[in-house]
């Protein structure tokens, strides 16, 4: 089949980007979207041009590396499918696909379709865990956890951190991502002791990053390849509200969003060395 790919090309954050159209005459409908880009890149390299940079790794829809907008929809037209598993048979012969990166202030541009999602790591670092050090654990069956609870936790824990929720949200809000982790840990007995603090810490970091606010409209859950429900956002709101009400002192801290990649001067002496 024949397709026109109109792809956002941008050399780096400093330079202006623009769309470039590529016509592909021989797209196999069984290919995945990323394999289609592979084929395009091979021809670009052979022509001496720079290939399109895009993020990808497992290509099984679980690592969360890949993702971009296709015709204005995060991860393309198939529900619950990442671009690495999106096969080309979902497009019509002759169609034009507009491909552009996630756009959000909190996800600074890196190159072409690659963006910087370290904000998500910082949100997790600010409380998205059970504070249990290795070796402290009681037997796995000490806490009995009903199947329903466990399943609900799993539904929320299925998040792959791809960023589609932020990309699809008109406000570029990270509420679904943050809510998913707060829900996963908040409903399990292991996570209860830190429930309030976790919500305050993670919400504080989310708000320190330049994400927008949630307006409860649900675009995120529609775009989510793991179909994380909107319910997780209300769980976040509830835990945050309760946590804020009960708090006695300001014991959460946030880190300043880091957007630089450079480690400074080349080959500078490593400040971490012990010697």
């Amino acid at each position, binding site marked *: 089949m024949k397709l026109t790919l109109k792809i956002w090309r941008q050399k*780096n954050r400093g330079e202006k980007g623009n769309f470039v159209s590529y016509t592909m005459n021989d797209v196999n409908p*069984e290919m995945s979207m990323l*394999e289609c880009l*592979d*084929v395009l890149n*091979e021809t670009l*390299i*052979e022509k001496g*041009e*720079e*290939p399109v940079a895009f*993020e990808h*790794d*497992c*290509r*099984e829809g679980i*690592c*969360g590396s890949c993702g971009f907008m296709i015709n204005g929809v995060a991860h393309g037209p198939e529900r619950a*499918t990442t671009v690495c*598993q999106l*096969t080309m*048979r979902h497009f019509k012969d002759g169609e034009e696909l507009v491909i552009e990166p996630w756009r959000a202030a909190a996800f600074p541009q890196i190159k072409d379709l*690659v963006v910087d999602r*370290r904000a*998500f790591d910082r949100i*997790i*670092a600010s409380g*998205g*865990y*059970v*504070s249990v050090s*290795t*070796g402290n*654990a*009681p037997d*796995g*069956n000490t*806490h*009995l956890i*009903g*199947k329903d609870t*466990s399943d609900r*936790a799993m539904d929320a*824990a*299925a998040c792959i*951190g791809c960023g589609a929720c932020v990309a699809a949200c008109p406000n570029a809000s990270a509420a679904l991502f943050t809510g998913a982790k707060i829900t996963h840990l908040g409903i*399990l007995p*292991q*996570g209860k002791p830190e429930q309030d603090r976790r919500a305050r810490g993670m919400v504080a970091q989310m708000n320190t990053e330049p994400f927008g606010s949630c307006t409860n409209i649900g675009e995120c859950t529609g775009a989510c390849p793991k179909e994380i429900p909107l319910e997780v956002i209300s769980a976040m709101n509830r835990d945050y509200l309760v946590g804020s009400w009960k708090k006695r002192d300001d014991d959460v801290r946030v*880190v300043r969003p880091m957007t630089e*990649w450079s*480690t400074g001067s*080349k*080959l500078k*002496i*490593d400040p*971490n*060395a*012990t*010697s």
Partner: protein
Amino acid sequence: MTLDSKLPTGPIETSWPRTKFDLKLVNPANKRKHSIIVVGSGLAGGSAAATLGELGYNVKCFCFQDSPRRAHSIAAQGGINAAKNYQNDGDSVYRLFYDTVKGGDFRAREANVYRLAEISVSIIDQCVAQGVPFAREYGGALTNRSFGGAQVSRTFYARGQTGQQLLLGAYQALERQVHEGTVAMYPRTEMLDLIVIDGKARGIVARNLITGELSVHIADAVILGTGGYGNVYYLSTNAKGSNVTASWRAHRRGALFANPCYTQIHPTCIPVSGEYQSKLTLMSESLRNDGRIWVPLKKGDKRSPDQIPEAERDYYLERRYPSFGNLVPRDVASRNAKAVCDEGRGVGESGLGVYLDFSDAIRRVGEETIRERYGNLFDMYQRITDENPYKVPMRIYPAIHYTMGGLWVDYNLQSTIPGLFVIGEANFSDHGANRLGASALMQGLSDGYFVIPYTVGNYLATNKFAPADASHPEARSAVAGVQQMTEKLLSIKGKRTVDSFHRELGKIMWDECGMSRTAAGLQKAIGQIRSLREEYWQNVNVPGSSADLNQSLEKAGRVADFFELGELMCIDALERNESCGGHFREEYQTPDGEAQRDDEHYSYVAAWGYRGPGNQPELNKEPLEFNYVHPSQRSYK
């Protein structure tokens, strides 16, 4: 070189506790004076970095992905074994140990495997405490399923996303330490060389993949948790980014590489559909619990599966292995699939596929139950193939999945370079010639959470570290070497893309060093690889510069290492004149086509030393002794 594997003596049941007592400790106040580099952030690297951070060491953790949560451990589907015996079906630490040694076709170290089985129990507890949502019964207790190669149900799982949930547990523990300031995380930073000073591993040279900057990181110990090398085959179930570069560059610096030819072929993957194919998608082995594998009895039977009556189907695994049936270990299942396809009885357009049929299971327990058990896998299959596996049998074919070989390590997981530790799939230690299902996650976490914190501590407590920094001559020469290689790759500007070389290398490897191997084929492959490598260094086209994000350049360096590794794999496979586990030499098989080991001559670990590209590597042998599980022909009949 004599290999000191530091194996404990005395009764195996107490060997790890005794070793733990003998290992020297680092005083808490001194821990923060030591720095440790962890390369890789998967189950092994991530759990090691988190745990070492918790202990108070100064840790730097590196990964090439944009976040530690992307490590390929995330893609493991089926589960993690542990000898909990929650099901009261006769499991025990000893049985897990026994199954693993036997499953590894008697090519693993007993003491390592026993330790792994012992620690498996704590892993589950630790992960549950972290909030990993393992599957549970209605009453709230943890549930288990059975897995290939075992007759007990000891596999814990979280839907079809066990690896993801375990990795997120480790990742969250790691991020907690990042927040505490004990771990500095370096995402999008790839290790390109190991710095060895005075015979000890003291640091790495790393490239920032966004800016292209090279940086030197010096520490007191370096831990590699950089995964396996299945991508040497180009098509594998590994992530596209998975590579051997960190391990290989350490190998070039003197770390021995053990058993490179032991690769695992996973029996249940979605068959290849075309030339453009970039990777293979695994369907969890757990599917074999309910699915029945068959092919038509007649050659070239092109009827659709529902048109083939029961009497004209060959459920070949059930027929040949009545006691294990569809649950035989991976190597056996894969080889049999290849055999029936070679006979011309394969299904699908390419003839490279067998049916995995759920219709009996759906009749027995209902579609709802099957959906509950495997829903996400069925969805994934349908997404990729556009066929509904509830109605039509799945088509599956084996694919490269895991590599049992890796850098040689002693019982303390230290390589032949002092101070360089290797954990998880990157080392060779626990699975012998074949890994049982649901054991990779177990090993990664065992090494990272429970073994390396003790053994690294012992190393730090018993060694002195001279001051060093980036200006040290060894660091400078390592940086210069990396720069030179990068410039060379960028300057060739030949005609072929990196991927085209990689694909060709993969084809050679799959044809000659894949599911079955012959001496003649391996010799041919070595020649082909050498000439392809020569062409690579003259005709590869790497566009762009080294000063920004350049994915072609990243791939180019990795493929360069795969060439050298691929050759070593063939040399190792050629040297091992026997069949064992994942290594099947056609010359060595029993009359009924099973792998035939040669314990008299080959009961050893082959640890290879590097002597430069194209030169015959140096073979060192570590003999294997079996005092508990006595080698026998593996039988699953």
